[in-house]
């Protein structure tokens, strides 16, 4: 099933005139022009060299263009800038632009439940921005699990998450407590593993924030207030480029979450000898890290744990994160109680620990077979 495209695609724009070089962002791209947000302007008709790009979406395209219109900033959400009209006879460039526009304007195809979600880290100390992002995600993406958004309130928290997980895109607010977004971006770019992560910087700081974050290595800067549909449209295109998940039939990966190291060791040993690929987690932090990086086909979660109940974890994974893989509660609770909790949590089922390891392995085989 396809849904109608909503919103525009944000792109990095580098403008070179005879005197100046300006880096900013553009949107409202057509086959003949683009609007670039910038305080820089020159006379109408001034020729410029324009480079458009976006990591993993748009390989750099160099286009000859001219200033065709100038707009002064208006209300919030109406940034000032210039419209650049492309010179006629773009040839191969024109063909590439046309192909990109066809993708941008194509109906959004419903992604498959087997697809790995597009993983985004949002670094912003405003809980309201985070909530708006979460709400917008739910509105824009038809399949809840298409986008997986992680949050960090400051640079250190972000760095901790980046060190332990992999993200398709990082969105960083410039104004952060302690260490600003530009400093965090520069740190990212110096790290060999993270250096090529696409980064979008956001801020109310306007030109100063834009220059600071782009200089630090951000790929794109976007002014607040955010036009979420434009951002999500861009994320949608990024999601299409991510590595697709391996076919379910080829992979039997199980993530086990239990606060008992003994239970984890025993369960892993049993499942691995049965031919499964297994990751274990003993606490919430390692569970969330493993869930994102290991990308399991099945999740087994204990119920009675010190940090959280397993059924609460299961229902949050289902309802908030849109996790589609089977999630099974494993516990020594009374069967009736376990069944009730599993049903309420929308878990895929439950396994009583008292039934032993042979039964646990059998149920895992059964669940993964059903999921195929």
């Amino acid at each position, binding site marked *: 099933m396809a849904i109608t495209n909503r919103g525009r695609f944000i792109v990095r724009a580098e403008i070179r005139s005879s005197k100046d070089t300006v880096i900013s962002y553009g949107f409202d791209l057509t086959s003949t022009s683009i609007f670039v947000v910038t305080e820089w302007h020159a006379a109408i008709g001034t020729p410029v060299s324009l480079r458009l790009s976006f990591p993993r979406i748009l390989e750099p395209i160099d286009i000859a263009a001219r200033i065709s219109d100038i707009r002064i900033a208006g209300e919030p959400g109406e940034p000032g800038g210039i419209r650049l009209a492309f010179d006629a006879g773009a040839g191969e460039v024109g063909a590439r632009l046309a192909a990109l526009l066809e993708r941008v304007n194509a109906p959004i195809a419903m992604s498959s439940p087997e697809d790995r979600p597009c993983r985004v880290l949002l670094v912003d100390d405003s809980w309201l921005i985070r909530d708006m992002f979460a709400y917008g995600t739910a509105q824009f993406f038809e399949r809840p699990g298409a986008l997986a958004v992680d949050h960090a309130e400051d640079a250190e928290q972000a760095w901790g998450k980046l060190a332990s997980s992999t993200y398709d895109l990082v969105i960083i607010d410039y104004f952060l407590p302690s260490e600003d977004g530009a400093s965090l971006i520069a740190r990212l770019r110096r790290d060999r593993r993270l250096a090529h992560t696409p980064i979008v910087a956001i801020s109310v700081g306007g030109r100063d924030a834009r220059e600071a974050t782009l200089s630090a290595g951000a790929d794109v800067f976007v002014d607040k207030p955010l036009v979420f549909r434009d951002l999500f449209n861009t994320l949608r295109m990024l999601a299409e480029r991510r590595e697709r998940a391996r076919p379910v039939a080829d992979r039997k990966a199980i993530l086990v979450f239990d*606060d008992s190291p*003994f239970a984890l060791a025993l369960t892993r*040993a049993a499942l691995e000898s049965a031919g499964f690929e297994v990751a274990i987690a003993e606490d919430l932090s390692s569970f969330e890290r493993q869930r994102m990086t290991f990308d399991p086909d099945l999740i087994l979660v204990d119920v*009675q744990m010190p940090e959280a109940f397993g059924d609460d974890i299961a229902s949050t994974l289902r309802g908030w994160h849109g996790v589609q893989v089977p999630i099974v509660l494993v*516990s*020594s609770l009374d069967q009736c109680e376990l069944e009730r909790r599993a049903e309420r949590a929308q878990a895929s089922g439950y396994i009583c*620990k008292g039934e*032993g*390891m042979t039964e646990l392995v059998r149920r895992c085989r059964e669940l993964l077979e059903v999921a195929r």
Partner: protein
Amino acid sequence: MDDLYAKFLPQFVKLARARVDSALTTVTRRDHAATALIVRELHSLAGEAGLLGLSDVIPLARDGEQKAKQLELSRAEADAGALVSALRRLERAIESIATMDRSSEPPDG
């Protein structure tokens, strides 16, 4: 699966002894943190025994867990006594498993 049990049974016995010892030591304290700890230890023990299919241990661990919860509510001496008795029964069951495990080892020489 037999190899798995052979490998993990000694580890279970060691862990179970530690859990029961901890519970017996803690039962004299009677405060919330103490009884909560005992509940957790016995719940974990029940789960670990269940995974190994130790059907004799599971109900004893659960019984101990319930006794600990009762003690948490009542703080009564009688309930403390009942808990200790339950822990002693559990202790004997664990030692019985340890004995069977040792006797299944091949003789020296």
